[in-house]
């Protein structure tokens, strides 16, 4: 990458493992600012940090620079996966243009909130554009947020993003925007560039056994599969241990690495069933409505299949840059994958990302849901890796 390109468009990554939240943020931001004219700081902070102090530390290191960010279930970056850090991606240069917008009180009006934040795309002029979204991972029906963005933008603007996490506490995930800590919110950032920007997404799971037909569904949940209680059918297919039928935490632990596959035209979509447990009603659900008549499958994956997916996603994103040299990547991986990969496995996941990144920087986090849309009108995913590559 030549110095001239670097001055026009750059992405830098910084990370700090300091326990003092403000100091960690200041250190990470300072390290991430590797070029002139910073346009946006994207802050990924562990849930253990004091969020107000993180933002104070960010402002101290880069006053006046627009900031977005969120809490995580682990931070991804150069040097591998980490827990407890502040990891920052900074982008800047004259060839890049940024506009941000936030919407609050999202629950109950998800689509409208998505529609509102998408308006930031109207504030940028560079020809290559992506709308990046950060959502509160504890808000239900994230698909509708993405649908709202699509209604506003149409087919021409790719979408990318992730849902803020809280380290499996499930009590509160937080978003950052310019000195404010938000919850029940969504943040949109229009990233526009003079050079191509690419989005890639994919999962490493495969279907097992016969398909199951959704015979009854209501309120976004599957009541019966093949005319029997959905939860029992699903657990039986997987030879689940007896405690998974009765103990909510055993159920969560068992289904976390075993998503439900939903048949779509271009393949089988993976849905995480672990967060909305209903042992009493014997229903299953998660990641958006599955309608009556739907074909579903049980799915499994392992480290090899998930790492293969990393390769596919990175290759796809790179191909979409149309031959332009990448300057950096944002990498959002599903928090549930940590349950399959384990601590050693996520190390190898990051090594695989590093192999694709080469000398260019990358950063991201373990999410409660990934957003990526190139084609079609949907773009909210579970159990995937989503990559944004800038050139």
């Amino acid at each position, binding site marked *: 990458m030549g110095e001239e390109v670097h001055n026009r468009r750059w992405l830098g990554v910084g990370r700090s493992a300091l326990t003092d939240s403000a100091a960690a943020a200041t250190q990470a931001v300072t390290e991430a600012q590797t070029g002139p004219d910073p346009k946006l700081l994207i802050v990924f902070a562990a849930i253990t940090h004091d969020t107000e102090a993180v933002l104070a530390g960010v402002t101290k290191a880069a006053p006046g620079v627009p900031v977005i960010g969120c809490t995580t279930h682990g931070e991804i970056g150069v040097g591998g996966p980490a827990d407890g850090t502040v990891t920052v991606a900074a982008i800047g240069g004259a060839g890049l243009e940024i506009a941000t917008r936030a919407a609050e009180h999202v629950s109950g009006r998800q689509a409208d909130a998505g529609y509102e934040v998408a308006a930031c795309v109207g504030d940028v002029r560079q020809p290559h554009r992506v709308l990046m979204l950060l959502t509160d991972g504890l808000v239900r029906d994230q698909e509708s947020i993405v*649908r709202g963005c*699509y*209604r*506003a*933008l*149409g*087919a*021409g*603007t790719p979408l990318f993003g992730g849902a803020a996490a809280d380290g499996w506490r499930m009590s509160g995930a937080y978003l950052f925007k310019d000195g404010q800590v938000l919850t029940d919110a969504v943040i949109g950032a229009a990233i526009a560039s003079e050079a191509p920007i690419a989005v890639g997404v994919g999962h490493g799971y*495969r*279907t*097992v*056994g*016969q*398909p199951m*037909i959704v*015979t*009854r*569904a*209501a309120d976004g949940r599957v009541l019966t599969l093949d005319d029997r209680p959905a939860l029992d059918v699903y657990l*039986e*297919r997987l*030879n689940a241990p007896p405690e998974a039928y009765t103990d909510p935490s055993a159920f969560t632990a068992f289904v976390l690495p075993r998503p439900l596959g939903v*048949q*779509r*035209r*271009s393949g089988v979509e993976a849905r995480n069933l672990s967060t909305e447990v209903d042992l009493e009603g014997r229903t299953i659900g998660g990641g958006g409505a599955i*309608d*009556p*008549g*739907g*074909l579903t499958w049980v799915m*499994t994956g*392992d480290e*090899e*299949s998930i790492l293969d997916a990393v390769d596919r996603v990175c290759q796809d994103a790179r191909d979409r840059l149309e031959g332009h040299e990448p300057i950096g990547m944002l990498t959002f991986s599903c928090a549930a994958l940590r349950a399959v990969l384990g601590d050693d496995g996520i190390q190898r996941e990051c090594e695989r990302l590093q192999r694709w990144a080469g000398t260019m920087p990358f950063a991201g986090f373990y999410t409660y849901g990934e957003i990526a849309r190139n*084609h*079609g*009108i*949907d773009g909210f995913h579970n159990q995937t890796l989503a990559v944004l590559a800038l050139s």
Partner: protein
Amino acid sequence: MAGPAESLYIQQLVELLAVVSSSPDEATAVQNAVERSAQALEAEVAAAVIDGNVVASIGFPPGAAPDDEIVAMTREQHSILYVPGLGGCPAVTASWAGSHPGHLVLARWGGPFQVEEQNLVRGMARVLELTLTMLRTLVAEHAMRESLQERQRLLEHLSAIQRAISHREDLQHILDTITDGARDLLGDEISLLWVRDEPDAGQARLASAAGTRPVDRPVVDLTAASPAGEAMVTDRVAVRHGNELQSRMLKLLGPRTVHASMAAPVHDSGVLAGALVVASCDTNRRYTAADEQTLRAFAENVSLALTDANTVVRMREAHHDPVTGLASRGLFLEQLSQQLAVADANGHTLAVLFLDLDRFKDINDSLGHAAGDQLLAVTAGRVTAQLRAGDTASRFGGDEFAVMLARVDGPQDAAAVARRIVTALAEPMRVAEQRLRVAVSVGVALSGTDGPEPTELVARADLAMYEAKAKHRGTGGYAIYCETVPGD
């Protein structure tokens, strides 16, 4: 038999039906249909055109949709739609008829729409037509009926029916709900639903009734002799006033003298399938245009229920053998392929058992096909009783079955299952009032380090089955495939 792709299209149609039928008004129904059809076909653009205007669309920023281009597509003037950011996208259109005809238009980046996908879009247009007609009937009712209570009752009836359909409640229960609702709302004594068993049958049987006297095996002929027959022949609403014009069957079924009757046709997957009838014993009863529309709305709900119920049956048939309920050959091979990949990745072993019944042909020839089918069903039950939850049994055709043991610890493990199956099938079976004995020959093949293809693994089990048959002379037994089998 439907393939996986076709099953997916049926699924998408049912999903669209569920979403659109729950819409409270026309504008929402059209917007939902547009977005849902785009989602199902993974298309970037979808639009509905009614009376030459784009009434809903997705895929363009607000105010930026090329309405003129989209309308031109419905006149087949273009087949490629330009979408900013994507370029030229192949498009497909489907029209619907009815009182307010319209078009559904979809455009997708990439290759053109397949023939099956074009059929799916046509089906979606039909679902939208049915829903719009129903919603308009509600609006028409709203305008015509003064009583708020009446309107509320119609709405409640229709939405209860729609919910029952999309929740897949028992078909008979749904049909009874509809006939009860029609009778209640129109204030008549009798409501009947006639349905043809076969599309080309010349008669229809009584599928549901409310307010009638019992009659032995009620049927109606498809002739103009009855209002139901007339509706089924003409595909229009038939109305008769005056007791002398009523059919013989209505005279039999009516609690008293019937003075007026009205029948509306019902359809299954677009094909004329029966008639919904109301009849009154009131000498002054005169059916109005509003009554006709109400009956039509109920009849359309019958059509939706029948179409949906048969969709479920077709979905099952696509994957399962109708005689035994076991997985079909296609499904078995698909699953085997997936499980082989899993076994390969996790380093464990999988086994395939190939079963052939030794005396099946004699029984089939001497006792007939019905007894043969019964024997196969009993056999299937006994085989599956020997399997674990993750294992799969399938009927391969004729008297051949295949079983996949998803995980075995070695040949002895698979052999134990084979032995259990041989023993279970050696027990006499009660079929066609006779005690029959059949024997089964079982061939066993294990996935190994050479990573055989699914068909190769089944072929190996088949070879071993022949060895078992030869070794045990058709008295039942098993053999395990090993490389030397062919020359053994």
